[in-house]
């Protein structure tokens, strides 16, 4: 029975998501949202004021616990803050996935002697009051249900979306700063320019090892332009050949798409790649191997040489507009 749940995240959207997951869980009586505050900034990286956090979880959380120690979000500080907040007894802690959240979850699970599950898509309660976690397993080969037979449980939620609510802000309770027995000093910090948004793109054209050399990727450019699409790729293209930066990688180790159209060019469709395109509405593929797994995992398939099909597609699109 998860009567008291503490939720926390590195950004406001993530916090809403885990707060909603906690609020809608059977038997939950109290949801407390923990926010690490900096000087007057909470929640890295999407800096927001405490009031904003309180508004974001309005109707979902009973209270916002504001803990100094944020600014540059550190998993060790975060874990210590959560551990102190859990001191009165807690049944579950829900966190939204992020590098620092993984550290916080790992540390907290040891500190509390908790059961720990990552990549949670959905959490429910079984007849005995144990938490059941739905998540993808074995790199996306199957959907698994994990039973967390120990209380408290620490659940790390996969990224997801959550609508904003219209409710009164949650009350804010100030807490003391947690202590960590070592320093992690920031020496330098560089903002990374994000030029690629695969998860948010409406159309994605992805290239795989069916392209024989780096120069050949230029063939796909007119198609990307004609479809007003984002360019994606399979792992060999990004990691083995390094023809494209890793931010263009689609799949388990890269991004997951939610596009209306996903067009796979010369991609075989291994499970690790397919995992990233489950959210696509329509999947089309160009592949000259009728036995490639992508054939069973696409809506439309052209079984032919991509070097011939791509120019024909560009022509067909040009003629159509």
């Amino acid at each position, binding site marked *: 029975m998860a009567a008291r749940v503490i939720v926390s995240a590195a950004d406001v959207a993530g916090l809403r998501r885990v707060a909603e997951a906690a609020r809608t869980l059977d038997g939950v009586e109290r949801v407390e949202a923990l926010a690490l505050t900096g000087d007057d900034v909470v929640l890295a990286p999407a800096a927001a004021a405490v009031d904003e956090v309180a508004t974001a979880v309005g109707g979902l959380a009973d209270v916002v616990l504001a803990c100094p120690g944020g600014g540059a979000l550190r998993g060790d500080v975060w874990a210590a803050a959560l551990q102190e907040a859990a001191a009165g007894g807690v049944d579950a802690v829900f966190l939204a996935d992020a590098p620092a959240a993984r550290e916080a979850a790992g540390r907290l699970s040891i500190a509390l002697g908790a059961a720990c599950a990552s990549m949670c898509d959905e959490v429910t309660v079984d007849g005995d009051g144990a938490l059941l976690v739905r998540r993808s397993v074995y790199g996306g*080969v199957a959907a*698994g*249900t994990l039973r967390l037979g120990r209380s408290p449980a620490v659940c790390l939620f996969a990224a997801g979306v959550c609508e904003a609510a219209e409710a009164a802000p949650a009350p804010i309770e100030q807490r003391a700063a947690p202590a960590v027995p070592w320093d992690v000093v920031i020496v330098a910090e560089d903002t*990374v320019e994000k030029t690629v948004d695969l998860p948010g793109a409406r159309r994605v054209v992805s290239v795989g090892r069916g392209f024989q050399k780096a120069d050949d990727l230029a063939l796909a450019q007119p198609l990307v332009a004609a479809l007003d699409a984002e360019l994606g790729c399979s792992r060999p293209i990004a990691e083995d050949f390094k023809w494209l930066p890793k931010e263009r990688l689609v799949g388990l180790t890269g991004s997951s798409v939610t596009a209306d159209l996903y067009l796979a060019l010369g991609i075989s469709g291994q499970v690790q790649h397919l995992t990233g395109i489950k959210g696509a509405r329509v999947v089309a593929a160009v592949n000259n191997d009728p036995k490639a797994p992508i054939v069973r995992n696409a809506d439309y398939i052209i079984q032919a040489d991509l070097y011939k099909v791509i120019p024909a597609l560009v022509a067909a699109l040009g003629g159509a507009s």
Partner: protein
Amino acid sequence: MRIIVCAKHVTDSTEIRWDDERGEVVLRNLPTKISDYDRNAIEAAVVLKEQGDDVELEVVMVGGEAAVKTLKEAVAMGADKGYLVEGGWDDPFDPVRGARVLARAIEAIDDADLVMCGLVSEDGYNGITGAALAQLLERPYLAPVVGLEPGEETVRATLDLGDVLRTVETPLPCVLGIDSSMNVPRLPTVLQVMKVKGDRVGTLKLADLGLAPGALGELAGGVELAGLGSSAVERKRIVLEGAAEEAAAALVAALKEEGVL
């Protein structure tokens, strides 16, 4: 400097299939290997060994007899020695137990300045072990590491946090989670693997870790796999026939029909 890399023996995840008729994941008789991401951790450690004067590098792996081959491959990448923790289990979903066993193994081997792990494992994908290990050993954890510069008493690491690249410094000893984009792991040749003789692979029994038989159960984090189902998304699987021009025109028409153009 002493470095211990934690490497996991896993079933090759590209070979795992979902059997629709039986409703189960087919795991038996599949090839096994070093978890992909741990190869990046070993590579990062081997580079430190090559660059440093006096670096001792050991690999620790949990598993049964079947893992010996995997451990030798890991050692052949450039480690001085490998340790196999006997009493293996194959539960990818309980990272807390894995961390508890590894922490005891690291203490039994003799402590290290740097403990390095892959960021996630190929089978479990939890991303928890390194942090849990750091908590058990009571030291800092830096991840996802894409750059590394160890000093005398501190280590400097660059972390890829998505929207920022942050370089931090923390005192040794410490635990690192290595990102797969940090390097391209070397592949040891068959000859190099064969050259890893018995004296470079040791075993640690549960008793060496101060554990009674059956104590692994007590270390468990209380997570069990309760059910499995297909994760496939149903697709239409319509093959567009004809020459390139014909098929291309048919695809454009179909996509218009779908309302995605």
